[in-house]
């Protein structure tokens, strides 16, 4: 039952990280907005990565599948960052 243990560990970690995000909001966000925001978004990215890697089994699939995901993510970053920068 090792896969089930792995899934459980991932679930616990995901929930813990969510709690950390919540805690950061209540403790730090008001004082250090930019920094805290960066940390919170990074945590979300890590969580998404964990879901992708273990629940969607990306680590077991051919690497090329991961590249599809990365390509899509890069597209989103290009669009959002480019658009936001264009109005600074």
């Amino acid at each position: 039952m090792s896969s089930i243990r792995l899934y459980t560990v991932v679930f616990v970690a995901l929930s813990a990280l969510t709690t950390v995000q919540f805690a950061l909001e209540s403790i730090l966000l008001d004082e250090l907005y930019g920094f805290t925001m960066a940390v919170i978004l990074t945590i979300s990215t890590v969580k998404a990565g964990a879901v992708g890697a273990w629940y969607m089994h990306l680590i077991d699939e051919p690497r090329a599948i991961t590249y599809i995901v990365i390509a899509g993510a890069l597209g989103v970053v290009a669009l959002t960052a480019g658009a936001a920068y264009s109005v600074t």
Partner: protein
Amino acid sequence: MSGLPPKSSVKRWLVTTNHKDIGILYLLTSLFFLIGAGVLALLIRVQWLPGGSVLTGAEYNQVVTAHGLLMVFWFLSPFAFAFANYFVPLQIGAEDLAFPRLNAMSYWLYLFSGLAMVTSFFQGGTHQGGWTLYAPLNVPAFVPRVAEIGETTAVIGLALFVTSVTLGSVNFLTTIYRMRADGLRMRDVPLFSLSILLTVWMMLFAFAALLAASILLGSDHLLGTQYFLSESGGSLLWTHLFWFFGHPEVYIVFFPALGALAEIVQTFSGRRLVGRKWFIIAMALVTIQSFIVWMHHMFLTAINLPIKTVFMVTTIGISLPFDLMVFALIYTMIKGKVRWTTPFLFALGALLFFIIGGITGVFLGAIVLDYQFRGTYWVVAHFHYVMASGAVALIGALYYWYPKMTGKMYNQFLGKAHFVLAFIGFNMLYFPMFIVWETPRRYSDYSSQVVWEVPFTDFAIVDAGFTVFHQIATVGAFLFAASFLIMFYNLVKSLYSDRTVEESPWAYTGSAEWATDSPPPLENFPGKPTFANGRLNFLTGTEATDGGVEVMEADRSEPATDGGVASQVEELPDHSHDADHASWWPLLLSAGLLVTALGLSGLEQSYVLWPFVLSVPVFVAAVGVVGARRYVASNPEVSGSTTTHKLLVLGSVPLLAGLLAAFHAQHGIVDGFTEANRYFFVALGGLVYTVYAFVAMGYESFEVPEPELNEAWPFEGVTNTKLGMWLFLGSDIILFGALVGSYVFIRFQSGWQDWWHDAGLPEAAHQVLPGLINTYLLLASSFTVVLALAYARRGHKRGTMTFLGLTFLGALGFLANKAYEWNEFINHEGWTQTSDVMGSTFFLSTGIHAAHVIIGMVIVVFLFSRASEGAYWGEDEDAHTIEYFGLYWHFVDIVWLFLFPMFYIL
């Protein structure tokens, strides 16, 4: 269903899922739209004759807009995909596309979306703002009430078209990556198929951005959100979203033409493309670069100078690989021995047009020049040279492949006459536009408003020079159009002639489609194609027949696979054809979507009824399935999901009849139906039928053998379905990314930290807690899905069902919590999606996500029901279903992982 009726039967064309049939359907349909859009073009020219005012201003705008939309979306790309459908499987040695039923659905959605577009004309008028649909010009606040429904239909029709394109992209990508014949390496795939591969990559990502844009625009129309009305960058938002799609789109329409050009030039120069490897690398580069040049369409907007400069540089950068490709083509002609056939003439003409169009495009890419050129006929001339160059190249492709598709040869003299007339007409039509480039692009009456300043003097000539040139253009337009009459005559006449062709009418053809009969048989080849020893051979279980064409020679140094066709038939353990080729559901499902779309177009007043729109069809589908299964259970001699499917087929007829009857009876049954209510029932009926057809399609047993003995680099080790699923998710990343990105953009523009403060919502009402609870719930439901999968793998029925059930409950909890939260906002705080742009982004983003959760729940119900029948264990393909569903569900979870901080924490 499996048997395919003969080609003379109408039914065949309604149920077929074979790629060659679908290619023919695409071809005929796209030519139909070409004629329609061409007539609109002639109307534009007639309007411009002296005193030739046949249209009002508003009508003129509609005609121009519809001409552009129809040509770009419903003619040019689908025309290219007629050939892609027909020839990609042939060129790579496959029997069909990876997902034949999906392919049929792409076609029907394409046809129906086009019909929706045409319908919009008759609903008080179609869209008027040009093919770029610049918002907020066209949101309800600025559109006369009568035209509102047609406007919306055009937008929804576009969204349907995007759906078709996305399904098609996933299909072609999976096919080209995973179904190449043994020994056919990626780099050896013929250039046309390679160009299609790169095209569908661009489509997969670019069209997702257009889908996001049209969802937002549709929502501004139907739900009263304020994305594009927003003063914080609403209009810029549209240009960003549209052109992030729009620039890749111009290569999407051109790349297939480029691939066809390369094939034609190779064949009729009798040699392999010079610098073939670099040609491919250049195409791949352009594919990537196409996503980072979009702001060259925005030089005259409020974006800052540094970013304009960056995009000027990337734009000049993207023209470089094109230079390489053009020189490769020219050099191939010089080094080879050219034969001046009809297809070659068209290819050469297209190349010439492309050179002119490309060079004038580089002018536009320079910021200072664009300050002058923007909004003038320079742009019109530029993009007609490049886009119509693509069309001309594809007409060349039609002449090139017509003998293969029909088995008949056409009259060469008439073909060349067509070319000469088209060439003259084309240049007469578009070249004068460069000369009188100062004509404003969007006027319906240019004559009195144009001033031609004589350089370096104080003189200004009013009108004069323009009229002459525009009259020349009008004559050119009619010549160009008339030249197509020759083509239609020639091709139709030849169909009934006795000039039959064998495998290949052309010498020096290199790719595999020429090594089989014309037209090819249902299973494409006389045996299983293989390139294992560098040349094409057929492996077969039956006797060896010589089905080959001549052997390629012509100075090819490598043992090429895009080249050398030898014919030799070897032994293979019997490969029987048990694939299915026919299904009604793609047609029926697409029809359901069309009806839904038409209903939605007039629904803007009655959105409070939407929960019914979503829940009733699910209910009906469930009743259908349960009824069918009861019946099967009480008749033990019949059994299994095949029978359930048969009963669902039977049920579809009375259901359809009932819906139609209800539509007609509407007026009589209930008094006081408002306009909006009527549309509501159309939408509801359409959706009921769509969901029903979707479920029934799930029950249909449709055999598509997984390919064996194939090249599948770099995707060995996954199934076709899994790859398809991931590709679909790849495009969904762009879709959701663009939705969230739009929120980020507007919030950034309006001042990030003041956002919630500016919302018409008490500060205290914006809380983290509801989001936090929902995050836990959704994570838990992801966890239970993987557990369900783990138990299914172990053959543990109870465990599987338990965890599927828990998943459903988790999702239900999520929705309940959301409903509570929304209720607070809407009914107690009075804060809705129409209140302000904060409300618009909040309700739409989380609402679309919630809709995905609901769709997921429907699938869970379906899985639960099949699991109770004992469906998901064992080794067959079926056992993977839970895994594929899991991919979707986890993706929905991941989206929420970002919505949570974006909307609840920050």
